[in-house]
């Protein structure tokens, strides 16, 4: 036998290792909030860890705007680029510990990573759905995720966890399916979007809609792709997910002085960084999905069906909540998290809240920030202890 380590052996011991996506098919129609119906749908997902005999240790990870089902581990252990988007948080010994929990991550409907979405074939016209894909809401996602939980045989989740748009899904879960969520972790989240937030999303959408390769959303049928528009949309989004101080630190803008060379270095670095990120994203994401996701964000407002009373919306929730915000997040600012916390307190719900110092703005929720991860670890460990008891 050769002593050469296989690629798997080189994967860190706190990694879930090499994972393969799976999919589930649903033949019962799914009716959206707006009345549109998907006759059938597919959900791509991955799981990490083992479901216990009582089926009580399942944790659902809800993804944000550009996320998907590949949250942890590698698809190819020799290629770091195939690392899951939340690998720093999910794995053996990590804050969401796969020794304790059966972790489920999926790609939402309307997504572009294998679940039914605008790039899927519309059986009625035998062409990709494109712009005809029904507009989904956070509530629709949660309904589809509940069907997915049935499929997996999970009556209730030990925790539903999400950052940003993912946190909104966790909140909606706690409101719509109180008996199926024991803990809801809302990270860098908001009870609805501010006018400024909606404005940013609208500019991003306009960049896509005005791209000459958009073809009213039928670009796939036209063998085209509005990559410039999508890239611009991403650049705008990306900047709003960072903080001013964080960018200064990254690009050396804090050392600005009268020497123009330094100044142009900053300009050059910012330009190439943004272009790189925009182009990279546009090459692997679907423009119609981006439109759909931002519309879902804009429309999220669980209080609306309760006379705009968030407290009333949360009255039925029985989950325990953990709310975490980040000091420099101006897209989903700490004040917005505090609104959720205050409403939960008024509704008599169990809630804990922490505001984590970070220079990384909204993106902080994806990063390995020591205090943030200690908070998650403390909270999740206590859930795991409750399961063992």
């Amino acid at each position, binding site marked *: 036998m050769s002593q050469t380590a296989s690629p798997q052996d080189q994967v860190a011991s706190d990694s879930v290792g090499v994972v393969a996506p799976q999919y589930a098919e649903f033949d019962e129609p799914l009716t959206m909030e707006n009345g549109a119906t998907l006759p059938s749908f597919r959900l791509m997902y991955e799981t990490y860890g083992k479901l216990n005999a009582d089926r009580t240790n399942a944790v659902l990870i809800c993804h944000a705007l550009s996320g998907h089902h590949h949250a942890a581990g590698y698809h190819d252990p020799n290629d770091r680029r195939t690392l899951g988007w939340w690998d720093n948080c999910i794995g053996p010994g990590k804050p969401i510990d796969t020794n304790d929990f059966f972790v489920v991550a999926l790609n939402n409907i309307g997504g572009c990573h294998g679940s039914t979405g605008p790039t899927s074939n519309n059986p009625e016209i035998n062409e990709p759905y494109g712009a005809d894909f029904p507009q989904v809401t956070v509530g629709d996602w949660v309904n589809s995720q509940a069907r997915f939980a049935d499929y997996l045989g999970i009556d209730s989740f030990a925790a539903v966890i999400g950052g940003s748009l993912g946190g909104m899904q966790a909140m909606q879960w706690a409101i719509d399916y109180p008996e199926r969520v024991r803990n809801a972790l809302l990270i860098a989240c908001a009870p609805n979007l501010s006018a400024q937030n909606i404005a940013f999303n609208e500019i991003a959408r306009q960049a896509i809609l005005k791209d000459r390769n958009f073809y009213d959303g039928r670009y796939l049928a036209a063998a085209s792709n509005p990559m410039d528009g999508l890239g611009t949309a991403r650049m705008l989004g990306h900047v709003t997910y960072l903080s001013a101080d964080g960018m200064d630190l990254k690009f050396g803008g804090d050392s600005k002085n009268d020497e123009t060379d330094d100044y142009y270095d900053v300009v050059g670095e910012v330009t190439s960084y943004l272009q790189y990120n925009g182009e990279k994203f546009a090459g692997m994401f679907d423009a119609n999905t981006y439109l759909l996701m931002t519309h879902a964000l804009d429309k999220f407002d669980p209080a609306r069906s309760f006379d705009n009373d968030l407290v009333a919306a949360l009255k039925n929730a029985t989950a325990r909540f953990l709310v975490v915000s980040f000091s420099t997040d101006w897209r989903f600012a700490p004040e917005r998290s505090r609104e959720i916390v205050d409403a939960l*307190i*008024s509704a*008599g719900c169990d*809630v804990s*809240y*922490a505001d984590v110092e970070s220079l990384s703005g909204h993106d902080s929720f994806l990063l390995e920030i020591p205090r943030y991860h200690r*908070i998650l670890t403390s909270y999740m*460990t*206590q859930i795991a202890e409750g399961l063992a008891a």
Partner: protein
Amino acid sequence: MKQADDIIIDLVNPNARVLDLGCGDGDLLCRLRQTKSVTGYGVEIEHTRIEGCLARGVNVIEHDIDAGLDRFPTNSFDIVIMNETLQAISEPRTLVREMLRIGEECVVTFPNFAYWQCRKQLFFGGRMPVSKHLPNEWYDTPNIHLCTIHDFDTMCAAENVRVITRHVFDQHGRETFPTRMLPNVLGVTAFYRLGRPT
């Protein structure tokens, strides 16, 4: 302050809604939950203490008490507790008013600055007292509003706050005959259960 915690656990009604300002690692709330099935929240600002609360499943809200308690609605708690924190608050009188707005009753404990050892250090040593209960030098103490039992009584009277019960503890956290007789001289820590004016 085990003694103070025991008294609080005795006086809190079963299923009460409790707010514990400066809750530490959630020890009191944890005991209250076990013995009285209370619900409620701790308020804390120190990071490791917040994590301590989370690890034992105690609700904790990261919040700076000095920023005020506006976020808590009127009458939202049966009892609001503040253990050994009043002296470090920038506006203690406003805070007591706020505690009695949010809660039906409140419990406040604080170190008695007129304890004879403090008096001795000030009188004979001519220096600000430093002791087990007040361990900091004047320049780095968080305790910016130290007061005596007489001072606190005077404020309660001026504010028309009802003193439901008062306990005064010695250096071992015990309430004894001497601390009852000469509270403002022999008392190390004061414990007040306060109510709204009748």
